[in-house]
């Protein structure tokens, strides 16, 4: 094994964790990582001179993940555009049923390993399509234009998916972390 190849191999576990946050199907995540490493090996010349191997690989991986999402979304389910189910959070005049209270020192949570376990558990509970849109936005850092294009949905639909994701995550984190601490 040459030196570059073995350096690529050491990044595999990290790349797999990165891909798994976005792609729930473990095979799809492994495939995306494999395609990334193959592309990286072929493109060794274009890496020359770049400072950070992991950053470079992550950039390639993001494209491979988007390819996988495009393939997977052909068979994905449709999420309703209405937000009637979110009415449960509000009374008829649009006020909160249970107005959000302040979270105690959220910054400190970001220093705790257990917080991230709670966050990952909450992400795992999101319906697949909603989680996909949310992680494309927040994890891959795509803008809504790109997300709409890849998922073949309208901007309005995209905003609804992201809104649903955030409402559900807020609720989940409050229950599982901020109130149970």
């Amino acid at each position, binding site marked *: 094994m040459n030196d570059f190849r073995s350096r690529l191999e050491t990044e595999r*576990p990290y790349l797999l964790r990165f891909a798994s946050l976005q792609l729930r199907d473990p095979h799809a995540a492994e495939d995306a990582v494999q395609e990334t490493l193959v592309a990286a090996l072929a493109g060794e010349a274009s890496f020359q001179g770049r400072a950070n191997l992991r950053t470079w690989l992550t950039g390639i991986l993001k494209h491979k993940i988007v390819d996988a999402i495009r393939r997977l979304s052909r068979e994905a389910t449709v999420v309703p555009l209405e937000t009637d189910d*979110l009415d449960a959070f509000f009374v008829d005049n649009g006020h*909160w049923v249970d107005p*959000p209270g302040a979270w105690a020192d959220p910054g400190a949570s970001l220093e705790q390993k257990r917080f*991230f376990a709670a*966050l990952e558990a909450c992400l795992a509970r999101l319906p697949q399509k909603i989680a996909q849109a949310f992680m494309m936005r927040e994890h891959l850092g795509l803008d809504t234009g790109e997300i709409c294009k890849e998922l073949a949905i309208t901007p309005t639909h995209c*905003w609804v998916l*992201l809104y649903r994701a*955030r*409402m559900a995550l807020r609720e989940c984190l409050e229950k599982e972390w901020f109130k149970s601490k």
Partner: protein
Amino acid sequence: MILSCKEVSRLVSQGLDRRLGWLERARLRLHLAICDGCTNFKKQMDFLRRAVARLQEELKERT
């Protein structure tokens, strides 16, 4: 026109994904100035973004 909390929550979320128009921003500010629940909600939405960004840092540290 005063926005309801439901409308505000939707707009706060969209504010993370697109640039809101000046009228939307003005109405949002007006509502947030008088509503603790929505002010907390907005802080929590900002926190959520930071938390996912930090989750990526966490992945690196686990390696």
